[in-house]
C-alpha cells in the first residue's frame, strides 16, 4: 500500500484498502471556512443536534476577514453562535489568517492525519505527510454529525523532481511548469506524490506551495514523505504526537513522471487557465496594473522575504498597485520583526491583514475590466479576482515583486 492508502486504512479500521474502494473514514481534523454557512444549514437539515467531536473541528474566518458586507458579517456572526452552541472552541477569527497556513503555524497539520476542510486547497497538507482533501458544505455537515466521511481510495501518481533550480526559480515555477505539461485535469480524482532530491532540498514553505497547487491539476490529495526538514518544522511548533506512514516497496503507482528542475526557467500561467503555462521570458515588459503577493500559495514568510529583498531601497512603478497579504498572523508578526514589512511598505506596497483577500475575488483589491494583474496565488480563471474582463498571470513571489517595481512583467533575477 501507499502511505496515503495506509492513512485511509487506519482511519477506516481496515488492514488493507485497494484503489477504487469506497471507505468510510474517521476524520482527524475538520475545518470550516466562513464562505459556507450552508455547512450549518445542512447540519440542521439532516436533523443533527451535536457535533460528535467538537474538539477536532476548527472554524476559520479567513475568506471574508474582516467582513466587507453586512451579509458576510452576518454569516460570520452565525458561525460564531454555532460554535458557541456546540461547545466547539477552536474558532480562528478574522485576526488569524488563511486556514492552511494557520494549521501549519500551530502545529496542527501532522503526518499520518486525515485533514478535511471546506477548501479546495486542503491538498496543501500533503507537505506534512498528511492526507488532506477539500469537500463541500454538506460533506462537512456529515463529518460534524458523524465524525466520518466516505472516500474513494485514489490512484496515485509519483512525480520525481531532481536537479538544482536556477536563481529566480522557485517551487511555484516548477509546479506551474508541471501543470502546464500535464494539464489542469491530469490528476482528477488522484493523489500526487512528490519525491526527488529537489523536493528534499526544499523548505516546508516551498513544499507547501508545491502540494497546494496539485489542486490545479485536479488532485484529491498530495504527499511528500516526511523527513528531517518536516520533523524540525513540527518540533519548533510543538507537534510531537504523530505517526509517519511509509509506502511499501512493491506499491505500483498509476504513473511515474520525472522533471529536471535545473532546466526550468521562471514560468507564468497566462490567462485564463492554470495550465496555460509559458516561460516568463515570452511576456517580459507586458504592462500590469496590480501585483499581488499573498494566499495559501504565495503568502508565507519566505515569499515575503524574497519580495522584500527585491524591493528594498527601491520604489514600485508609478500607477502600479502592489498588494501584500501575509498568509497568517504569525507570518505578519515574523515579517514585521525581520523588517520585511517596512521594506515593502517603504517601496510603496499596500499592506492587507492576513486573509484570502482578493485571491477569490470577493474583496480587498479587485480588478477592473481591462486591468492586468500578476499574482502569486493559485488561480487565473475568468473573473477570479474581479472583472471577467481582467487578465491574471500567475507567477512566483519573486516575479511578482520584480514586476511591481517595473510596472510590467519582469524577470526577478537581476534583483536577487
Amino acid at each position, binding site marked *: 500500500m501507499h502511505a496515503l492508502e495506509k492513512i485511509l486504512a487506519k482511519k477506516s479500521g481496515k488492514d488493507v484498502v485497494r484503489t477504487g474502494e*469506497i471507505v468510510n473514514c474517521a476524520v482527524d481534523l475538520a475545518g470550516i471556512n466562513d*464562505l*459556507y*454557512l*450552508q455547512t450549518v*444549514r*445542512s447540519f440542521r*437539515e*439532516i*436533523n*443533527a*443536534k451535536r457535533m460528535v467531536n467538537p474538539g477536532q473541528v476548527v472554524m476559520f474566518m479567513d*475568506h*471574508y476577514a474582516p467582513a466587507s*458586507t453586512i*451579509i*458576510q458579517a452576518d*454569516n460570520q456572526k452565525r458561525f460564531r453562535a454555532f460554535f458557541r452552541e456546540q461547545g466547539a472552541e477552536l474558532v480562528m477569527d478574522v485576526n488569524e489568517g488563511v486556514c492552511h497556513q494557520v494549521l501549519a503555524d500551530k502545529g496542527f497539520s501532522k503526518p499520518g492525519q486525515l485533514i478535511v476542510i*471546506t*477548501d*479546495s486547497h486542503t491538498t496543501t497538507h500533503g507537505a506534512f505527510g498528511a492526507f488532506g482533501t*477539500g*469537500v*463541500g*458544505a*454538506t*460533506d462537512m455537515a*456529515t463529518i460534524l*454529525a*458523524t465524525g466520518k466521511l*466516505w472516500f474513494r481510495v485514489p490512484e496515485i501518481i509519483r512525480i520525481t523532481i531532481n536537479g538544482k533550480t536556477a536563481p529566480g526559480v522557485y517551487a511555484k515555477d516548477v509546479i506551474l511548469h508541471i501543470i502546464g505539461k500535464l494539464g*489542469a*485535469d491530469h490528476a*482528477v*480524482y488522484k493523489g500526487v506524490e512528490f519525491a526527488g532530491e529537489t523536493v528534499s532540498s526544499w523548505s516546508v514553505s516551498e513544499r507547501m506551495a508545491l502540494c497546494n497547487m496539485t489542486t490545479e491539476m*485536479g488532485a*484529491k490529495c498530495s504527499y511528500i514523505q516526511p523527513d528531517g526538514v518536516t520533523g524540525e518544522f513540527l518540533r519548533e511548533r510543538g507537534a510531537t504526537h504523530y505517526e509517519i506512514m511509509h509506502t511499501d516497496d512493491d506499491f505500483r503507482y498509476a504513473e511515474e513522471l520525472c522533471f529536471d528542475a535545473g532546466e526550468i526557467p521562471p514560468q507564468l500561467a497566462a490567462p485564463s*487557465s492554470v*495550465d496555460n503555462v509559458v516561460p516568463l521570458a515570452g511576456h517580459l515588459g507586458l504592462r500590469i496594473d496590480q501585483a499581488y503577493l499573498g494566499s495559501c500559495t504565495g503568502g508565507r514568510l519566505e515569499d515575503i522575504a524574497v519580495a522584500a529583498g527585491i524591493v528594498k531601497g527601491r520604489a514600485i512603478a508609478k500607477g502600479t498597485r502592489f498588494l501584500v497579504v501575509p498568509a497568517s498572523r504569525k507570518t505578519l508578526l515574523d515579517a514585521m520583526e525581520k523588517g520585511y514589512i517596512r521594506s515593502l511598505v517603504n517601496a510603496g506596497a499596500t499592506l492587507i491583514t492576513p486573509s484570502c483577500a482578493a485571491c*477569490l*475575488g*470577493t474583496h480587498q483589491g479587485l480588478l477592473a475590466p481591462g486591468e492586468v494583474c500578476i499574482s502569486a496565488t493559485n*488561480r487565473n*480563471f*475568468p*473573473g*477570479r479576482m474581479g472583472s*471577467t474582463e481582467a487578465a491574471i498571470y500567475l507567477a512566483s513571489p519573486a516575479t511578482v515583486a520584480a514586476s511591481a517595481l517595473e510596472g510590467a512583467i519582469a524577470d526577478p533575477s537581476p534583483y536577487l
Partner: protein
Amino acid sequence: MFEKTLCGRVFLFGKNVDTDQIYPGRFVELTDIDDVAKHAMEGADPEFAAACGKGDILVAGGNFGCGSSREHAADTLKAVGVGAVVAPSFGRIFYRNGINLGLPLLVCPDLHSRVTAGERISIDVKSGEIRDESGQLLSRIQPVTGYMMHILESGGIKPLLRGQFQ
C-alpha cells in the same frame, strides 16, 4: 425523487469550466437558494440562468466544475432546473457536491462533440443510452456506481442522513 429517464434541451460548454464561472466568487456570501439560482453559470454565460428550463441538460468538455469547494456551484445548477450535467470528467469536489445534492453528474467521453446547443436529448440512466429527439443513439454514459446511485436514488445525501438522526 430521482428520474431514471432524463429529457431536456442541451446547453453546451467547453472544457475546464471552473466553479468561478459556474458561480462567481463575489456571490458566495449569498445563502438563500432563490438568490443563488439567479447567478447560475454567470461567469461563462450571463444569459444562462434566465434561459435554462426545468430538466435542461448541461453538456460540457472535461474537468467540469474544477476549482473551488463552493457547494453553491452544484446548488445553483439544481435550483435553476438543470436535470443533469454530462461531461467526460468532473472536478472532484464539485462531483461530490452534485451527487450529495441529488444532481445527476454523468460521465460520457464524447457527448460534447456529438450534440448541438438547443437540441433535445434523452438519457436513460439505467441503460446508459443517450438519444436524440428522433431516437437515434448518440452515445452512452458510464454506469453510475453502487454508492453514487444509492445517494441519487435517495434524493441526495441529506435524506439518507436524516434517517440516522430521527
